[in-house]
């Protein structure tokens, strides 16, 4: 098989799609609906902070954040160069999309490590 980087990005895209389909609706309902509408009590800062204390929980959070971002980057890359017909900029678009995902992932990793 020829070496080609596309399967790598597609794997991250696929994993991101699966993980965000599983977790993001739950997070959106808790943060976007349940807490603002008072269906559940507003958790205290200390409580939330405590949840993310163990390294394993922070790793799970990093996986959700990073894979969702790579899902976005891959989808947005195709949206730009096919949807908006910007095919001649395809390398710049790829660098910008994956580059921004990598940058945010690096920032998230740094923040979660120094928690």
């Amino acid at each position, binding site marked *: *098989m*020829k*070496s*080609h980087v*596309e*399967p*790598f990005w*597609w*794997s991250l895209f*696929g994993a991101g799609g699966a993980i965000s389909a599983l977790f993001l609706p739950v997070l959106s309902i808790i943060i976007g609906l349940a807490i603002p509408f008072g269906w559940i009590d507003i958790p205290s800062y200390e409580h939330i902070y405590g949840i993310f204390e163990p390294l394993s929980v922070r790793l799970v959070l990093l996986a959700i954040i990073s894979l969702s971002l790579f899902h976005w980057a891959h989808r947005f890359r*195709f949206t730009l160069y*096919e949807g908006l*017909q910007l*095919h001649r900029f395809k390398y710049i678009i790829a660098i910008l999309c994956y580059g921004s995902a990598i940058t945010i992932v690096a920032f998230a990793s740094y923040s979660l490590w120094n928690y």
Partner: protein
Amino acid sequence: MADKITLEVFRYRPDDNSEPSFQKYMIPLQRDWVILDALNYIKDHIDGTLSYRWSCRMGICGSCGMMVNEKPVLTCAAFLENLIPGPVRIEPLENFPVVRDLVIDMRDFLEKLKRVKPWIIREQEDPAIEEYKQTPDQLADFKQYSMCINCMLCYSACPVYGLEPEFTGPAVIALAQRYNMDNRDHGNSARMDALSDESGMWQCTFIGDCSKVCPKKVDPAGAIQRYKVHGANTWWKNLLLPWAKDK
């Protein structure tokens, strides 16, 4: 029910140096007519110069695909009755060069089909074995993909093929899967080479229109996604276990 219906048929005759245009034909409306019957009526009774491809009239040969009211269909399976009151617009399949009137140039498709080696490849033959038996489950793995009749409706429906003509396209990838999933075949890695490059399966963005228009329910979109999973697994395996045999 009205007794007549108007067809607006795409005409292009390069030998006349004429520009492409639409020609209107008023034809009798028969309850049991499909679009192909209407075209045959025009050819036989109104205008013998109209060119189009057809053969079997029963959804087997895959040659009468056209755009009817901007949707790719087999004209032998699209009833006029469902298009009342008309007018009905008939055009050659989208995304292909037009040779004449409703006839498209399919060389690009045939060229791509050849590239994925759509036949059973064997590493070695044992002449002593007279037949290779398959269980119903082994047959079920690929049977759906073997129903493709090469009608190219999926190529007309595929926005990616429209934008990037080098894309291998739905039917060819589904047909590659038909042989990859056949347990008698050993050609998986040869086909993977043809389909993992820039113009191969990674171009597909899973819009799914190919599967919607497929008259044989082949589901090329599903075939491509399964192939991508296989391609991604192979890629990771080659990266992490470079000494393992490519399979």
